[in-house]
């Protein structure tokens, strides 16, 4: 059977995972494959999986880095539960990843790396490629190192340098297998290495060699093809959550006619927001790497006092450090956006893993009654929207707003319909500059929003003093008056509660009433909605409601919950939203809790739905669901 003759099978979607040593370039390989697929018109969703923070010794289990991509011809919402294809560059990568590969899945291995030392490091006593333990998979042993070396005979680079091209070989092979064009990657290599022709040549050759290897060897019986997805018309790019968040902040500043001020202190997985924004000085973006997280939020509050669109971003331990200053910002009633890119905890915890266990900290993690607004994007692309929304709320209500993203959203990518800046809403900002008469009253509130005026230094006649001691309403003077204190405590809460009038009702995916409602928030969106969709396709009376607004809740939430017999709340924590729902609405919500530093799989939620044994949908509704 010659290469030309091999059939190309059409399939709906494929999940590939690339895994290798941290030094093997797996993140790059995955990103290239994703970009190509996205440009080709597939829907995509990705999940990078970084090793612990420091580079572990080459070949060690701790050093394995992975990148999973799901690409499809339909609308997908997650990077896929289990890979259909696994590419492993060494024994450690095999060891840590093979457990996830679907039974019968394709397993491509760099057989050259399965040598004694690597096997020992991965804890294998014999070579798994040879001992039959992988018999349930379609195993391909490819001597990638040798093949690359052969392909680069002419190239003057050293053996070690050549070896570093082996990820491109693997990529080329996978491109062949899934019938993808290589232009985009070839162009990327051109751009990236234009100053280094030998490396350019080596990577190009390695890529091609991989592709031709697929074409010429007889090892691979089938090729697969995933056609374009039916995506709404428009221009798209691929975007990660942190990129989207950074851009959302910039666009909010633009639409407010303001400059952005961002203060941060490096911490995984929030650092990239600082990195991204620090590139954009020409847009007037001022970034400040502070000496610690307290300084970062302090600087942001100071900038907000000065009239800037101010934001700080951090994670776990860094957010804990900011809590005292958050209390101050609540007293000052200044607009401030705080981004918490949640990670595994407590304490240092699992810095590179995802979790959504800071919701209650966001709600209550400050001394005394100190309410602030809390919102959470559900997908990487939504990080843009919610960052923008955070500033809208912050400025309109003169309040700190916490955005709860997480490691999964931050690093995961999806196609994103590029918005037109001029079609984004304007964020109106008013700094008072003239007044009728009398002293300026810094705590005289707008009767609708309860926001106080945002008078900024430099405005003659508006000199005033603010601070963290309780203040008299209207005048803002220091006040120890008991009644004023109670009034202010309740007013601060009422102001946040009032935001409920200004946010959309929560949408229900499925039916407006029924047997089981699955309620989620944040990055669990994809898995929940996909599971519910599947259950509905099976006729089960299950719907989903996903919260982007956690404080205050959308106004229709209580009513929506009441229309279902049971409520299930899947969360990557021990039941934090669940607790809030129980307390607020006295619903006996059931929890599905996973705290493994990993996102939910669709099947995990699906299984729980089945365990709860929901009723079949009434036939009328069923017809609608299937249509």
């Amino acid at each position: 059977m010659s290469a030309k003759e091999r059939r190309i099978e059409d399939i709906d979607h494929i999940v590939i995972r690339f895994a290798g040593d941290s030094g093997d370039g797996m993140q790059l390989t995955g990103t290239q494959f994703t970009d190509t697929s996205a440009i080709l018109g597939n829907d995509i969703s990705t999940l990078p999986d970084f090793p612990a923070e420091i580079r572990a010794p080459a070949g060690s289990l701790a050093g394995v880095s992975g990148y999973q991509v799901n690409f499809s011809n339909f609308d997908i919402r997650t990077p896929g539960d289990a890979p259909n294809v696994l590419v492993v560059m060494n024994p450690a990568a095999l060891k840590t990843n093979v457990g996830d590969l679907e039974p019968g899945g394709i397993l491509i291995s760099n057989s050259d790396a399965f040598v004694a030392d690597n096997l020992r490091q991965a804890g294998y006593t014999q070579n798994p490629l040879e001992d039959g333990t992988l018999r349930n998979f379609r195993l391909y042993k490819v001597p990638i190192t040798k093949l690359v070396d052969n392909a680069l005979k002419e190239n003057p680079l050293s053996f070690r340098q050549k070896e570093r091209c082996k990820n491109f070989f693997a990529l080329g092979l996978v491109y062949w297998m899934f019938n993808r064009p290589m232009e985009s990657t070839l162009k990327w290599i051109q751009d990236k290495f234009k100053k280094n022709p030998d490396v350019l040549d080596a990577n190009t050759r390695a890529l091609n060699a991989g592709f031709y290897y697929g074409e010429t060897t007889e090892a691979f019986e089938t090729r697969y093809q995933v056609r374009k997805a039916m995506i709404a018309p428009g221009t798209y790019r691929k975007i990660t959550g942190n990129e989207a968040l950074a851009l959302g902040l910039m666009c909010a500043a633009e639409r407010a006619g303001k400059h952005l001020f961002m203060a941060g202190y490096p911490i995984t997985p929030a650092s990239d927001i600082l990195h991204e924004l620090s590139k954009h000085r020409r847009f007037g973006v001022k970034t400040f790497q502070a000496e610690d997280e307290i300084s970062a939020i302090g600087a942001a509050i100071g900038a907000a006092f000065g009239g800037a669109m101010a934001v700080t971003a951090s994670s776990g331990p860094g957010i804990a450090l900011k809590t005292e200053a958050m209390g101050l910002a609540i007293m000052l009633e200044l607009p401030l956006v705080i981004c918490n890119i949640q990670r595994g905890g407590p304490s240092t915890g699992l810095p590179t893993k995802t979790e959504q266990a800071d919701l209650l900290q966001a709600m209550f993690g400050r001394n005394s009654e100190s309410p602030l607004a809390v919102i959470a994007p559900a997908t990487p692309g939504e990080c843009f929207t919610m960052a923008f929304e955070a500033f809208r709320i912050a400025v309109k209500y003169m309040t700190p707003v916490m955005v709860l993203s997480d490691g999964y959203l931050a690093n995961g990518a999806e196609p994103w319909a590029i918005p037109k800046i001029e079609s984004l809403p304007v964020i109106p900002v008013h700094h008072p500059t003239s007044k009728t008469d009398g002293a300026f009253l810094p705590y005289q509130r707008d009767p609708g929003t309860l926001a106080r005026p945002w008078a900024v230094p430099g405005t003659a006649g508006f000199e005033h003093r603010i601070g963290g001691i309780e203040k008299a309403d209207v005048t803002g003077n220091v006040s120890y008056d008991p009644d004023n204190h109670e009034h202010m405590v309740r007013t601060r809460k009422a102001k946040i509660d009032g935001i409920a009038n200004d946010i959309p009702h929560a949408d229900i995916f499925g039916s407006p009433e029924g047997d089981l409602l699955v309620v989620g928030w944040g990055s669990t969106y994809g898995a929940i909605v996909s599971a519910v969709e599947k259950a509905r396709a099976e006729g089960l009376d299950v719907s989903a409601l996903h919260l982007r607004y956690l404080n205050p809740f959308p106004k229709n939430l209580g009513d929506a919950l009441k229309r279902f017999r049971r409520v299930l709340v899947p969360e990557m924590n021990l039941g934090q939203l669940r607790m809030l729902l129980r307390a607020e609405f006295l619903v006996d919500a059931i929890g599905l809790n996973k705290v493994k530093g990993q996102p939910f799989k669709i099947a995990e939620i699906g299984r729980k739905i089945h365990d709860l044994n929901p009723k079949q949908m009434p036939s009328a509704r069923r017809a609608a669901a299937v249509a």
Partner: protein
Amino acid sequence: MEPGNGGSAATTTAATAAPAALTKKDFVSNQDIRWCPGCGDYAILSSAQNVFPKLGIPRENFVVISGIGCSSRFPYYVNTYGFHSIHGRAPTFATGLKLARPDLSIWIVTGDGDGLSIGGNHLVHIMRRNVDCTILLFNNRIYGLTKGQTSPTSEFNKKTKSTPLGSIDYPINPISLALASEATFIARTLDTDPKHMARIFQQAAEHKGTSFVEIYQNCIIFNDGAFEPISDKTTRADNALFLDHGRPLVYGKDSHQAIRLNGWQPEVLTFDGTPPANVAVHDETAVDPSWAYLLSRMDPQAGFPVPLGVFRRVTRDTYENLMTRQIEESRKKSGPGSASELQALLTGEDTWTVPA
């Protein structure tokens, strides 16, 4: 149109309008002062209120930022923009504000506890960055507001509420610390010498970059007399050394004492008539901070006078100017940052279009 800066239209107007002739009264707020009668803070407040109108800065462009402590009540009493923040963190708010609004004149008021205990690190970092602002550190060698515990400048073995058997903490020298923090303007003055205070405040305000001013301040309630004998007019001359740029280090009621160097070590020298030639001459502009450091170490316990005045005054780019310059240079290089450029950034490099 490019997005407006943090400052509104009004700011710009105010900044360009010719400043009205201001007087001390313009800087007195309507709030009752709540310091103990006899507290040194009053004199410091008054000196600052005397200096502010002389700086040629519109009142609305002043911002006074403080932490927490008796001293940190200061902003309430000054009729400018004011910010009474949280304990130890005033430099952080100031840094953000100055970066966002380089047009403002920013004053930080802090105490020995606020600035050197909980807030020590922020102080170090604002100084090394050289954010343009003036820091007034009220050093009363005690925690006033919390009613008398040891502070980082309290003497060794001091008995306080929290150290009834004597403090075992060795004190910090604020001037030495400011020097190690690469501050570009460093001075010391004291509450009982309003003229000296005013002169130093003015110089500090005029300096571009972080100006650090330690003020010896008497807490009459919890640490009365901490700066005797130099706070007392009658004994001051013999115990204080007033630093003047380019002038020999001469002091004493009859100016018959001086400092000379023996190698790198200062020595006290007593003389009659004109000072001998080998008396050390003060150079506040020395780029190497070692000179100022050496002065900061002169220890009254070892018979040295206490230096007052400007220890160091050198030039270095300010933080906010460097930031502004990066913006300008980056605009020159990569484009002015227009909305269309932002649209291009949103769009990114690799896109694909799904046709309708």
